[in-house]
């Protein structure tokens, strides 16, 4: 049995700069495994260890995603092996092409019962890949999973999601695609031994042709028209009593139309 973790070798926006006209310049941002994907790998690792499964990283991207550095960076986080679908067409692929490549990788691996994705990619951040991947595979997709348990013998996955009303527990049949909620669990930095071990782990770089995959034509459906920063306002709360301060803060937030009380 295999568990796959989808990850992206993506530029770190904290190293990008934004020009006054709102253009984001990623040219000096180094690619990395994002904190979201690190959480997905950690969740996958825990599930694979509990189930005695093999944990395989899957990724789609251009040439950078298939460099030994990118592979070792992913493998050092606890994957057993990795498969990267590489093509110039995937360099700046949209959600659909990415999901196509990942679905092909899952089919290529065979015997995959669970795909774990990160909460979102760190650069594009659309949060769409898990759902589209599920659609392409014909599997259900469950996003924002805070904790998961696998009962492989019963063909079931139990997932917890944090919603406004509390913790929601869901039971789903395998196979399934899930995405790990941001910060669902601690994903420690790879240790020195993990880094050394990464070089010895197997990995495969495949082209879409190797997978008999025809990538859909890039179809940009959105265009960036304008970026404008939110208007900043300053409300001063002038009290030393914490309860009063909290009440005034809530009132100020409510007056500003900020949703309060869990996610919206």
């Amino acid at each position, binding site marked *: 049995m295999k568990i796959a973790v989808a990850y992206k070798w993506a530029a770190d926006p904290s190293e990008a700069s934004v020009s006054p006209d709102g253009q984001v310049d990623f040219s000096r941002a180094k690619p990395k495994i994002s904190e979201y994907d690190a959480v997905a790998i950690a969740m996958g690792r825990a599930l694979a260890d509990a189930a005695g499964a093999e944990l395989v990283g899957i990724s789609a991207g251009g040439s950078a995603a298939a460099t*030994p*550095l990118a592979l*070792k*960076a992913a493998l050092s986080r606890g994957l057993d092996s990795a498969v990267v679908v590489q093509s110039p067409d995937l360099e700046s692929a949209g959600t659909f092409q990415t999901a196509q490549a990942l679905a092909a990788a899952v089919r290529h691996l065979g015997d995959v019962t669970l795909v774990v994705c990160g909460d979102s990619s760190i650069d594009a951040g659309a949060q769409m890949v898990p759902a589209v991947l599920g659609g392409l595979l014909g599997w259900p997709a469950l996003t924002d999973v805070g904790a998961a348990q696998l009962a492989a013998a019963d063909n079931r996955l139990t997932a917890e999601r944090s919603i406004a009303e509390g913790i929601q527990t869901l039971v789903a049949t395998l196979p399934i695609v899930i995405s790990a909620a941001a910060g669902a669990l601690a994903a420690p*930095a790879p*240790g*020195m031994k993990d*880094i050394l071990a990464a*070089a010895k782990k197997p990995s495969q770089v495949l082209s879409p042709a190797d997978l008999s995959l025809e990538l859909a034509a890039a179809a940009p459906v959105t265009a960036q028209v304008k970026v404008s920063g939110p208007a900043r306002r300053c409300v001063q709360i002038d009290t030393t009593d914490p309860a009063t301060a909290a009440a005034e803060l809530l009132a100020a937030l409510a007056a500003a139309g900020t949703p309060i009380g869990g996610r919206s």
Partner: protein
Amino acid sequence: MPFHLTDEQELVRTSVREFADAEIAPLAATLDREHRPPLESIPKLADMGILGMTIPEQYGGSVSDYLSFIVALEEISRACASTGVMVEVHASLVSTSILHFGTEEQRQKYLPDMAAGKKIGAFCLTEPGAGSDAGALASTATKEDGHYVINGQKIFITNGSFAEVFIVMARTSDQPGTRGISAFLVDRGTPGMQIGEPEVKMGIRGSSTTPILFDQVRIPESALLGEEGHGFKIAMKGLDGGRTGIAAQALGIAQGAFDQARVYAMERVQFGQPIAKLQAIQWMIADMSVDLEAGRALVYQAADLEDRGQPFADAAAKAKLFCGPMATRVTHAAMQVFGGIGYTDAYPVERMYRDARITEIYEGTNEIQRLVIARSLLR
């Protein structure tokens, strides 16, 4: 010589930075304020494999090349210089000396526990009358019925208050100068060993620096490290590699201050614009960055020479001689970029400014590095 880190060395950097940002940096101000060593970080540093980076796998370590260790040390020091020097003395001076000069029995006895963080190392060379002139040390180790008995006083011992294994240099013969000196492995708690109160210091206040008195300390003959009379050579060999380590510590401190100053310069607005738009500030940032790159080249070169088995003592002295004053310059400039708030403890540059200064003094002062370099050139 252009320098390219290998994939593994790059990953060591990103991984140790991620670790240090999460686990080491948040403690730095508290350790400094409370003058206490980062004991809670020791198990984490061991789990990361950082304490074992100079120890081979067969002894439970996670040995890497020396350059990887240097990169790790730079990143730890960028977050907290006190934690940096604790690791440096432990991994670079002490474990390496045991590995190179220890018997198989000594390696088995200490290295696995040192990699696991169960034993931290300390290196006892300096005495009240022997600092730069370490060969003038006066502590003695006399042989008595199958034992050595150590008497003498050591000062300024890093990790002194909590280390478990001490490499101690003492005289085993009346031969003057360096030839009569031997090295010993002494366990914490050996009767007669008195560890004094930690010094109150300007910087690296999270590093414990203590005097240690040896009063009739009896240790078995098997505690001799290397051959009798070779102690000074062992100490100097340790310090050669150690100098690259301290240079890396200085580099990390300077990089930490630079990173803070660069961000602050872009955010702080005066005269209606970020101060980064002022040429005066731009020049400081540019100069700091040149200093950092030059220092990094020297440090990595020294580590790389060591990795390739080539003579590196001279390169290590050059790296330390450049990076110590460089860290002082860069942290000084970083504080200038911050203005008044930089002089308060609201930002870490104030601590970094104090931490940087020691790198010009310990493991050989600037002047001693010049001596080493000149000697190698004027033979």
